Structures are given as structure tokens and as C-alpha cells.
């Protein structure tokens, strides 16, 4: 669950339930070697790489409820950055490494918030719709893509950070797991077609949409890698 490639494409962080509960691992692709990063009581989830590959933002509920922490991969130290009785989850770093956006329901329903790393301040970013979650940055840092819901449907939307303009790109009802392609022009996401979980891509302006069909198993949680061209 929640696979995340490091920026250099050499390592993959993910959540595994192989021991009966969630634990965070980092695996090096070439050697296959695997390192256990977090196995605290409760949730260990939602890993997100810092742009320089030295840190993982993650969600741990070891201190009572799900909060965002920054884990140093070199020193294994853990720094807590949210302090709130609500659910704080799904962190994602900005390309310049100065911000982390995350999902929080501290306002009653899940919305997107931004944590400014230098100052430690938290600001709410989304105000449209009853549900905004799982935000991530475009490669140029100017937009977010997220799961958005109003009227009971779950769709993919982008938001320009400069003016908070929200644009809904898809028209499914159970769309999830969006992420920008490295070229910044397409977004891949998971959707449901004919009762199966399939992947699809949509252009950033929303005009072109295409489903990626494959035989056999359902597919979920796509994640672009920059390493394999």
C-alpha cells in the first residue's frame, strides 16, 4: 500500500501489512535490500519522500491519533510536525522542500492543509467541496492534484496555488490516488470501470482522458517513477 518512489527512482517506500499490522519499509530497487523504517504501535503509513531523498514524511498514530512526522533516514530520528486531536495524514512535499501539504479533518471533514517547514505554521488550502484529500504537487510546484468530493462523487481535481482556483478533471464517482507525471502534463489516477479497478490518465487541462486497460488483476495506487524512461 502507498508506494512512493524516491526522486532518483532508486528506492521505493511503502506500507506493508505482512506482519498483521501496518509497517513502513524502504526498499532499494537494484539490490532488493529492504529496511524497516517504522513499526510503532498503531498506524505507520503514508510515506512521502523529501526532494533530496534524506527524509520521509509519514503518518504515525503512536502518540494517540494519526499525526505527521518527519523521519530522518540517516539518523532514524523522528520529528513530529502536527499536534491535533484530528486525523492528519497523506503528507506530500513541495518540490522546493519547504512545504508539506497534508489531509486533515480538524475542521470537521477532510481538507488540504499546508505546513510551512521553516516557520512551522499550518494553513488551510481548500474550501470548496465537502471532501479534499491526498494532495500532491505538480513538478513545477504551482499546482496541487487531489481527490475532491461534492455531491457524493469522488473525482480528481487540480488547484492552482496562486489563486486557489479548483478545476475538476474527471467525471467518475470513485476516482482516487492521483499523481502528476514527471513531465507535469498528465495525471494518472485510479478509477472504477465495469466493476473493476483500473488506471486512467487525464491531461492537466482536463481535455483528454484515457483508460489504461489490462488483463487480469485490478490495479490501484499508481505511482510514477522518474528512473525508467
Amino acid at each position, binding site marked *: 500500500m502507498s508506494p512512493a518512489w524516491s526522486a532518483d527512482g532508486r528506492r521505493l517506500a511503502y506500507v506493508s501489512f505482512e506482519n498483521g499490522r501496518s509497517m513502513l519499509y524502504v526498499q532499494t530497487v537494484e539490490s532488493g535490500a529492504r529496511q524497516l523504517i517504522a513499526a510503532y504501535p498503531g*498506524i505507520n503509513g503514508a510515506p512521502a519522500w523529501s526532494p533530496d531523498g534524506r527524509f520521509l514524511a509519514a503518518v504515525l498514530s503512536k502518540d494517540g491519533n494519526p499525526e505527521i512526522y518527519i523521519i530522518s533516514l540517516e539518523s532514524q530520528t523522528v520529528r513530529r510536525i502536527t499536534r491535533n486531536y484530528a486525523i492528519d495524514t497523506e503528507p506530500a512535499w513541495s518540490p522546493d522542500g519547504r512545504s508539506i501539504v497534508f489531509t486533515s479533518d480538524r475542521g470537521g471533514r477532510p481538507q488540504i492543509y499546508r505546513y510551512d517547514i521553516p516557520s512551522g505554521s499550518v494553513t488551510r488550502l481548500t474550501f470548496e467541496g465537502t471532501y479534499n484529500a491526498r494532495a500532491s504537487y505538480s513538478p513545477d510546484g504551482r499546482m496541487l492534484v487531489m481527490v475532491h468530493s461534492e455531491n457524493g462523487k469522488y473525482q480528481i481535481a487540480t488547484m492552482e496555488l496562486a489563486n486557489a482556483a479548483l478545476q475538476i478533471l474527471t467525471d467518475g464517482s470513485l476516482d482516487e490516488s492521483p499523481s502528476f507525471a514527471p513531465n507535469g502534463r498528465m495525471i494518472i489516477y485510479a478509477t472504477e470501470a465495469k466493476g473493476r479497478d483500473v488506471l486512467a490518465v487525464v491531461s492537466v487541462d482536463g481535455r483528454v482522458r484515457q483508460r489504461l486497460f489490462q488483463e487480469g488483476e485490478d490495479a490501484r495506487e499508481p505511482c510514477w517513477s522518474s528512473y525508467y524512461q
Partner: protein
Amino acid sequence: MKNRISILSITLIAILLSACETMPQKGPDSNLSSSEPVTAVDEGVVSEGGQGAGGSSGAESFGAPGSVVEGQPVIANPLEDPASPLSQRTFYFDFDRSTIRSDDRSVIMAHGEYLVTHPNVRVALNGYTDERGSREYNLALGEQRAKSVADLLLLQGVGKDQINVVSYGEERPAALGHDEASWQQNRRVVIVY
């Protein structure tokens, strides 16, 4: 000489034979327990789940160990009694909510009473959500639901080490449809003994 030996042996055999005839016979009723534990057994079967002795420990409260008690009812383990509130192990939740429904409170508290009186028994509380929304948020919501049930048990005095909270989020759904009929079956916490 021969005659004295034969007389002695005949005498011995006669003594032995007479001894056999006077050995006391074992009657079938000799190991029946007194009537008092029987009434205690009846009360134990009727009680609401978890009060007093449960299951195998109840069997030791009447009769000598290993004895056969004919005609008495067998004590059911309250965990295996379909009429006991403890047979309800799944609790359902409203969309995006982790508050326990009012109908479920008394059943959860029955589990709490059982766990308080059996401090060596441990349970897992598995929390789940329906498929809508993002996966990691649902992992957190599933945990919140399981923790709501855990909090109620802890308030009753159940030990922290008797409870293990695990969230599966939207994984391992109970129902696979993409409609409310399925979704409501997936928004749940399951108590596993």
C-alpha cells in the same frame, strides 16, 4: 505331615472365600454430588453474558473432579452461546463517523464485563471503512472507529494489554459492491477473541 498341609490349605481357601463375600459393593449413586451446586449451575446458565464463572471454570464448581453427574445440564461457554449478547462481534458506523451507535453500546459493554472478569483473555479490535475516499485517510478512520470501541472497554476497567487495535482501512471489505448496501457493511469494527 501331608494331612496337616492339606487341612491348612483348605482352611486358608475357606477364609479367603468368605472374605470375598463380605466386600462392600460399589453402588451407582455413591459419587453424586449434593444438591446445592446444582442450583448454582441453573443460575449460571441463565445469567447475562459474562457474569460469574464462565465456561470450563464453571464445571469445577460442582461435583468431585472427574466424577460423572447424570442428568445435569452442560454449562455453555458464554462466548459460544448464540443467545448471549457476546455473540454479536461486529459493530457498524455511519459514513465518515467513528461514534458508536446507541444500540451497540450495551452489547459492547457486555463484552467489557466479560473481559473484566476474564483478565487473561485478549481481543483484537479490527477497524474498517468503505472504499470511498483516499486509502490512507481510511486507514486512519478505521483506527478511530476501533479506538472508539476500545475507549468504551477501557472505561469499564478492561486492561490495556487485553486490547489490540488494528486498522485495515478500506482493505478486506466484507461486501464487494459499489453501493450503499455494500458500503454500510464495510464500515465496521470487529471484536476478535
